[in-house]
Structure formats: structure tokens, C-alpha cells
């Protein structure tokens, strides 16, 4: 359904939007099949209401949020972000959501918290149980990355409730990182003092780093990251450092060797 009046966010890329049908039919959501057309066919089996997100770990006020409470954490805003997949294709998507920082502030992170771990739904009754990755899917951010104003908890796209295949009911969107960092259908958020394991990093530590910031100068070992194909375009375009968000986020990585911390 429609998400009602939305706050106009200044975070808007001025580039043509990827058509809704492509955003919702070309998905990597391996729990519903590894072909990019699979999630649109299979994800309807997932029940997204009722839903809760448990927030725990190094926080002053651990809490379990239901959907109503999640929707009321902050005014919903529309943000138009680039999405760059590690497979060298990209989209421009009008997300609807609120900053993750609003949720984290509500649970009062302790001074000892350094990282945020995201655990997503794994329901063998409705999902593909082949051990393609180590389920449930896990992702992680450094706390400063998680608190960054660009980091979004999305509940919709194109002004409507998030389709299941796009990670309903609540997913992460971190626009300066490769798409797999933006975990879908989140059920647990855990604040920790050490870097959490992540599914893709576990599966291929040489190929998928913990940071996975979009970087045209650091190739995936098996393919180049210098260019990308924007869905709908014929010619490839150059990939931008931090997916074009360098002005906002590069300072978080000052002094770090981005080839080592890829």
C-alpha cells in the first residue's frame, strides 16, 4: 500500500530513476533463489506482518520493536540513492525510510559499542535451504557508519510499502557500499565491541571485505570494478569512489589503506 505523505529529503540523486519493474524483478535475495528473477517469484511466501526487530547487545535500553513502533521512530522520508551491486551493475532507487541513527539512539548505545551486526530472517519453511551462504544472512557496519545520516532503514520504495523481494518489511540501505551490505528483512540488530562476522566475508574473505565500500580502484579478484552497467543503459559508465558519496563519507576512512580494508 501507499505510505502516505513523505518528508522530502535533501538526499536525492539527480539521475533518472530505474523503472519500478526492474527494481522489483531483478534482485539478489539468495534465500529465495540465486537467479535474479527468483525472489520476485518466491518471496511472496514470506510473512512480513507481524514482524519484530530485536535490538540487543551493548545498549542501555535493549528493546524489541514491532512494525508500528518502527514506523513511528522518525518521519518517513523519500531518498533517491544510487545502488551499486558488487556484480558491476547499478540502479537509482527512490527509497522510503528513516535514518538508522534514529533507531540506534532509541536504544542508547553504550560507550563500549563499536560495531553493529544485522541478522536477517531465515525461515526454512518459505526459503531456499541449500547452504549457498551461511544462513541466516549476517551483515555488519562500524558504529560510525551505522550512525551516518546517509544510512537508511528502508520500509518502502516508489512511495509504497517495500515488496518482499526487496527486503520487506525493513531493510538496511548503505548507498556508498556494495549492495550486499544492505541487509534485507532484518530481525535482529546487535551492538558489539568487535567486528562481526558477515555472510559474504565468511564465504569469500578475499573477494568480499568487511567494508566493501564501492571503489573503482580495487577490483574484485574475478572482475573489474572500474565500470558498471546502469540498468537500462547500453554503455557502461565509470564507477565513482564511494558510489558518488565520497564528499559525505570519505572522511570516515581517513588514514585507512582502502586496498587492505576493502
Amino acid at each position, binding site marked *: 500500500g501507499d505510505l502516505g505523505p513523505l518528508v522530502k529529503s535533501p538526499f536525492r540523486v539527480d539521475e533518472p530513476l530505474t523503472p519500478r*519493474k526492474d527494481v522489483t524483478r531483478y534482485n539478489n535475495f539468495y534465500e529465495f533463489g540465486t537467479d535474479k*528473477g527468483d525472489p520476485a517469484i518466491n518471496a511472496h511466501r514470506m510473512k512480513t506482518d507481524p514482524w519484530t526487530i530485536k535490538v540487543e547487545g551493548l545498549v542501555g535500553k535493549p528493546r524489541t520493536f514491532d512494525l508500528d513502533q518502527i514506523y513511528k521512530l522518525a518521519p518517513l522520508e523519500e531518498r533517491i540513492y544510487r545502488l551499486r551491486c558488487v556484480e558491476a551493475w547499478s540502479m537509482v532507487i527512490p527509497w522510503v525510510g528513516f535514518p538508522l541513527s534514529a533507531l540506534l539512539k532509541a536504544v542508547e548505545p553504550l560507550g563500549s559499542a563499536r560495531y553493529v551486526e544485522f541478522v536477517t530472517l531465515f525461515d526454512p519453511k518459505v526459503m531456499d535451504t541449500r547452504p*549457498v551462504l551461511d544462513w541466516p544472512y549476517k551483515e555488519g557496519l562500524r558504529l560510525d557508519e551505522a550512525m551516518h545520516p546517509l544510512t537508511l532503514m528502508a520500509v518502502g520504495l516508489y512511495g509504497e510499502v517495500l515488496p518482499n523481494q526487496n527486503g520487506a518489511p525493513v531493510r538496511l540501505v548503505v548507498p556508498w557500499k556494495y549492495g550486499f551490505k544492505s541487509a534485507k528483512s532484518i530481525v535482529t540488530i546487535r551492538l558489539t565491541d568487535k567486528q562481526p562476522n558477515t555472510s559474504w566475508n565468511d564465504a569469500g574473505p578475499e573477494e568480499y571485505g568487511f567494508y566493501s565500500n564501492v571503489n573503482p580502484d580495487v577490483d574484485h579478484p*574475478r*572482475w*573489474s570494478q572500474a565500470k558498471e552497467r546502469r540498468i537500462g543503459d*547500453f554503455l557502461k559508465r565509470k564507477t565513482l569512489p564511494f558510489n558518488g558519496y565520497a564528499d559525505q563519507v570519505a572522511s570516515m576512512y581517513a588514514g585507512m589503506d582502502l586496498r587492505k580494508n576493502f
Partner: protein
Amino acid sequence: MTATTAPRSPSVKALSAGKISALKVLVFILSLIPLGLLLLAFFQDDLGANPIETITHATGDWTLRFLLITLAVTPLRKLTGWHWLLRLRRMLGLFTFFYAVLHFGTYIVLDQFFDWRAVVLDVLKRPYITVGFAAFVLLVPLAVTSTNAMVRRLGGRRWQALHRSVYGIAILGVVHYWWLVKADMFEPLIYALILAVLLGLRAWWREQERLRQRSAPPAQANGHRHIIPILPR
């Protein structure tokens, strides 16, 4: 059985020339269906969000499938006694090459759009592209020498020695697929298993033949052993 009579198993099924021609036409049409479906999807704007990826994957899949079908001819013939299968092998091999050309062409034209620097870097730096490229290059001499005239020019033995490289090419093709997949190894594994069976059967039969020859008394090994293998026509 006298020495002049060719041994024939009762299961041999000879087909008339007319039936073979009809069969060839049928296989030719069937082999064009994957291309036809791609073209249909293209004109109906039904290739999905990433049409170039769809075309790349489809032509790659069908190259591998035709390669495995081609390699299945000999084992199937041995197991069933349907010797006419051999008459289809050249066409199947050429369709392997046909889809390989489409796959390679898609990569060069649609995916890289003649960015030769990127292509060279890909071939040099990315193992899955290196082996895929090698497999394609090695297919070229097989396609070029597929005519009857070339078989005669090379002579049966040399021709056959050259065309045995198809076993290596098939391994490169499966490795190409294996190495490009991100995490879900299910499909590459299926191709690898089928190829292992097709090559394994050959190895097994060769070993059996070797043992048979070794145990045969040397006096008899003289006359009938060097049967020139049947060449494709």
C-alpha cells in the same frame, strides 16, 4: 564368423539415407530454438532488467549444453548401438561453435562494446575469462577442420588427434562456468558431473580395450586391431 565379415551386434539399427536427412533437418531446427527464443524475448522486450547479462548467460549455457550433447554422441552410440547418431555429431559440434561465437560476440560487442583494453585486461587478469577465451580460441581450428575436404587433407589420424582437443576444451568450458559463479555452485556442479561421466566412460572403455589387447595372444593381434575409426560425414 569369417575374417571378412564385419562384426555386427544385433542391436545395430541402420537408418536409410532419407531418414538420416530428415533427422538432420530436425536436429538443425531444434538447435536453433534457443536462439529463436532469445530473439523472441528481445523483440517482446522480455529479456529482463539486464538484457546483456541474460543474452550472455543464455548463449554461454547453450554453448556448454551443445558441447556436452556432442560429447554424448559416442557413449550413446556405444551403449545403444544407434550408429546413425554419429551422422549428427558434426552438426552438433558446429552448433557448439555457433553458440560460442554468439557468446563471445555478446561479450565483445554488447558487454565491453569494443573496449579492447578492457578485454585484454580481462583475458590476462581474470582466470575465468582466461579459460573461457582459451576454450573459444581452441574451438576455432575444430570448426575450420570440420569439412570432409579438411578431414581428407589432414588424414584420419591427424584429424582425430586434433579433434581430441575437444575433451580439454570441455574441461575449460566447465571451469569457466565454475569460476565465474559467486556462491551457488549447483549448476556448474551439474555440468561438471555430466562431463565427468562422459569423459569417464571413454577412459573406462579405453582401459578395457587396453586390457583386452594385452591379454590377446600376439599372433592374433596382427590382423584386425587397427580398424580406422569411423569419421563423421
